[in-house]
């Protein structure tokens, strides 16, 4: 493989270890003399704890220690923090009830942590946990967002009598109401954006080690952002000095958002490692993951679109109730607000938008960011409304989209964002071509001849990635910065280590980032290694979420590379006896144009570390540079998804026949990896539309979909092969011109699938997941109405 590497589908560096069983996931790391932790969880959705009896459990074989909420309270261990402050419509801060690491007198969802048992073996820990006697006073539970504010609903938290954390709004209500009053046509939809369970295939895990020798901790944890994990755990919960805690997130088996957050389990075992003075390992079992990993989505929404007689969008009005679960998870408050309402302009010139969000507590697992985080929910609102409006007004869905599409950039939306660039027509035209929309009616007819129903649905989405600038995010309530850090370390013999605060848990950064670095420095890609996931080795980092790694983390590396090259020019100028302003750097060579004078970057690096002939009076030895990059704007990936389904009316079974996605992610570094990201996102989005749905029993608050036998994960035979392509408008404000590709598939696809199914069935709406049973019932009730 030869340079330039950018734009080539280079095979991944990380694959060798993953393919041979050589990966190092957290559960693969063991410490000498380690103990094993098991968490006793609440079997009830809502209960007061009258008493906990531990004597029998403590006497069980192999038990090293048992701790409850009382022990944490006595040790003044804090509660889990929320990283984003939302200010409500009355200017008041959101209600932020405490989120204890182990229950303090009350449990608020099935799976809430009650005690931790630490023993010599996992089996001994489980055996002992079975001997703990907890006397519960069971309380009524509320699980559905729509029920949380009803009079008489169970109240979860003291000081939050209506279970409401906040009512928040964005946009100009008066202007929107006025536009609706004069509109020729109003499309209205009411729906639920179904609750999902992320289900990274690697369950969460942690190994905490404490050293009395220097009062320090080392924590291995399956996490997407080890520096953030350390900051939150030390400063907000355990009160430990940050420099005494090293957090390592080694190979991580998928995240999709669910491994962003600071959870109780790793926090408790870190604290407990000092108490028992032994390493403590905890590995979540899948049945517990369903009860312990933050869930996603779960909105109840009424959405309206006002149009004039020609189909021009006049205004949009959205009312959403968002289910937060029992506690505010780390970024829970930002997801149904800042990451949701700001996306409601979509790709369109809708002049006035108003969105009101009521966020409620229920006796369910906390809800937080899951692939797309707010943006899939927003896209679902916009794209279901647009498609439905097109059908109601008898305009083709593509035509209605084109008519209202943004074509001039930069474009300031009425919901705070300013899109820097895009070409929405280009992705739509290409998607329609690849999906053979022109031939669809013939295929529909052929299907009808076979007794099958075919439907076609569009979704033209926008997303905002690379969450940005820190000061603006701060003004909106972020309690953290949103920059990224990077370091480029040139070794004396010409190879390079790159340290990034981004974290790869499947995205292939070790390859993509190396391509960028190798091209910029003009060295072979084999000579570049990328290091991530260790607070002990990397200067700082905000980690990986929101499709930010290349746009923000890659930009930090580019800044560090600029510094390397600037210093290299000074060294080369000395070696070549020229002025550094006369030095040109290209393809790994410093030269003086118009002369034969040149030095390779390897020679310059060697001189920097063996500075015998070196401007020591003016320049430090070494070639090692760090940079922090704080973006000036979000990036705005956008694209067009087209789904074609075929339904068997006898069974309701729905097959995705074709799914076409044409996306604009800005410049593409490694097309193979980008396509892979799209495929995975599409599977999760199609999963949401057709298969996945978290179900709680409304009366008892028991999770009914608590295993892979009950929660339908997409499997290989549920999905088609996909048709994906890209169109490029480069991002205008980061050095690589990249926008981010990790979430797009999950953002655009649910609406495309449901638009296709409703088209096939000839109905206005159908609930997600549109399982065979739901589709069949919809067909039955439709035929009864006739």
């Amino acid at each position, binding site marked *: 493989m030869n340079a330039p590497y950018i734009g080539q589908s280079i095979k991944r560096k990380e694959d060798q270890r*993953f393919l*041979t*069983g050589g990966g190092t996931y957290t559960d693969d790391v063991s410490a000498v003399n380690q103990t094993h932790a098991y968490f006793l969880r609440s079997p009830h959705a809502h209960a007061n704890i009258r008493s906990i009896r531990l004597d029998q459990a403590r006497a069980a074989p192999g038990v090293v220690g048992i701790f409850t909420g009382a022990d944490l309270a006595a040790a003044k261990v804090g509660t889990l923090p929320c990283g984003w402050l939302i200010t409500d419509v009355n200017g008041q801060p959101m209600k932020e009830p405490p989120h204890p690491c182990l229950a303090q007198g009350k449990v608020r969802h099935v799976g809430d942590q009650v005690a931790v048992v630490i023993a010599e073996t996992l089996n001994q820990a489980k055996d002992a946990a079975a001997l703990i006697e907890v006397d519960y006073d069971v309380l009524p539970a509320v699980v559905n967002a729509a029920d949380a504010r009803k009079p008489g609903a169970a109240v979860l938290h003291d000081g939050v009598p209506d279970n409401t954390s906040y009512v928040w709004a964005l946009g100009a209500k008066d202007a929107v109401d006025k536009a609706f009053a004069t509109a020729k046509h109003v499309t209205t939809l009411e729906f639920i954006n179904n609750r999902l369970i992320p289900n990274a295939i690697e369950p969460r895990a942690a190994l905490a080690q404490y050293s009395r020798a220097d009062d320090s901790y080392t924590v291995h944890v399956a996490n997407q952002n080890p520096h953030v994990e350390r900051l939150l755990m030390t400063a907000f919960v355990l009160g430990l000095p940050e420099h005494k805690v090293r957090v390592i997130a080694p190979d991580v*088996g998928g995240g999709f958002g669910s491994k962003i957050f600071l959870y109780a389990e790793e926090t408790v075992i870190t604290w407990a490692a000092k108490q028992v003075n032994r390493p403590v390992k905890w590995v979540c079992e899948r049945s517990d993951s369903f009860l312990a990993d933050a869930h996603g989505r779960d909105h109840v929404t009424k959405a309206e679109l006002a149009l004039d007689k020609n189909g021009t969008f006049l205004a949009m009005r959205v009312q959403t109730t968002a289910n937060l679960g029992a506690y505010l998870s780390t970024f829970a408050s930002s997801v149904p607000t800042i990451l949701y309402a700001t996306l409601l302009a979509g790709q369109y010139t809708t002049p006035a938008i108003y969105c009101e969000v009521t966020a409620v507590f229920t006796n369910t697992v906390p809800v937080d960011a899951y692939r797309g985080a707010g943006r899939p929910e927003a896209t679902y609102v916009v794209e279901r409304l647009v498609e439905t409006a097109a059908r109601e007004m008898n305009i083709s869905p593509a035509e209605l989209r084109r008519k209202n599409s943004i074509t001039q950039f930069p474009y300031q939306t009425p919901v705070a964002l300013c899109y820097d660039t895009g070409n929405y027509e280009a992705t739509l035209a290409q998607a329609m071509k690849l999906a053979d929309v022109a031939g669809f009616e013939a295929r529909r007819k052929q299907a009808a001849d076979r007794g099958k129903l075919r439907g076609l649905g569009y979704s033209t989405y926008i997303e905002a990635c690379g969450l940005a600038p820190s000061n603006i995010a701060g003004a909106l309530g972020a309690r953290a910065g949103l920059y990224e850090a990077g370091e480029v370390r040139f070794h004396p013999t010409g190879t390079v280590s790159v340290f990034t605060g981004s974290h790869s848990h*499947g995205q292939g950064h070790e390859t993509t980032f190396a391509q960028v670095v190798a091209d910029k420095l003009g060295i072979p890609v084999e000579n570049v290694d990328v290091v991530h996931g260790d607070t002990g080795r990397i200067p700082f980092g905000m980690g990986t979420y929101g499709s930010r790694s290349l746009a923000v983390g890659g930009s930090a590396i580019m800044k560090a590379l600029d510094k390397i090259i600037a210093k290299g020019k000074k060294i080369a100028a000395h070696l070549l006896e020229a002025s550094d302003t006369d030095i040109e750097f290209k393809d790994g060579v410093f030269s003086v144009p118009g002369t034969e004078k040149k030095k390779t970057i390897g020679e310059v690096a060697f001189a920097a570390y063996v500075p015998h002939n070196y401007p020591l009076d003016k320049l430090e030895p070494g070639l090692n540079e760090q940079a922090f990059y704080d973006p000036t704007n979000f990036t705005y990936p956008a694209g067009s998804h087209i789904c074609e389904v075929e339904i068997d009316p006898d069974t309701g079974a729905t097959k995705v026949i074709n799914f076409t996605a044409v996306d604009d992610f800005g410049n593409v570094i490694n097309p193979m990896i980008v*396509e892979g990201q799209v495929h995975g996102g599409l599977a999760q989005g199609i999963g949401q539309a057709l298969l996945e749905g978290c179900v709680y029993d409304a009366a008892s608050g028991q999770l009914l979909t608590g295993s*892979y036998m009950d929660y339908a994960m997409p499997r*290989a035979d549920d999905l088609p092969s996909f048709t994906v392509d890209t169109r490029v408008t480069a991002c205008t404000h980061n050095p690589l011109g990249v926008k981010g590709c990790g979430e797009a598939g999950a953002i655009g696809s649910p609406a495309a699938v449901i638009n296709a199914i409703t088209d096939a069935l000839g109905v206005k709406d159908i609930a997600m997941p549109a399982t065979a049973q739901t589709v069949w019932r919809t067909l039955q009730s439709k035929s009864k109405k006739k």
Partner: protein
Amino acid sequence: MTVSVSLTVNGKAVTADIDPRTLLAQLLRENLHLTGTHIGCDTGQCGACTVHLNGRAVKACNLLAVQAHGANVTTIEGICGAHGELHPMQAAFREHHGLQCGFCTPGMVMNAIELAQKHPNANEATVRAELDGNLCRCTGYHNIVKAVLAGAADMSKSVNNSVKG
């Protein structure tokens, strides 16, 4: 109480004294330190722990270790060539980007090898049906299917070559 179990793993005879409840997956990971076999669920649904037991792909979390007494077990660590060269199925996964986070990968590869042996001329529909017992959350299966088809073709080529040779 412990019991003694003896079996052959990746060509080597091994013996371990274990708690009788120990699963084969736990024996491989904890006693033999073969951590390439992953555990992704506790209901036998995800397939990340798939290994070969006497030549058949099985979920190592669905067997007690004592049930493998006397058996011949091959894990992901045991399929490379003598000098670490990738098995054709491993190579196909790399070539076709059939893995992202890598966690489901060992189980996928082990299942895919058996699939290719059972169905040397498998088509896409067969591959998708046969992968039903292995969950992947990253790839959407698109590239896994491509990889398995290519890996199966390469495996039958090398079988034919070795027959000819």
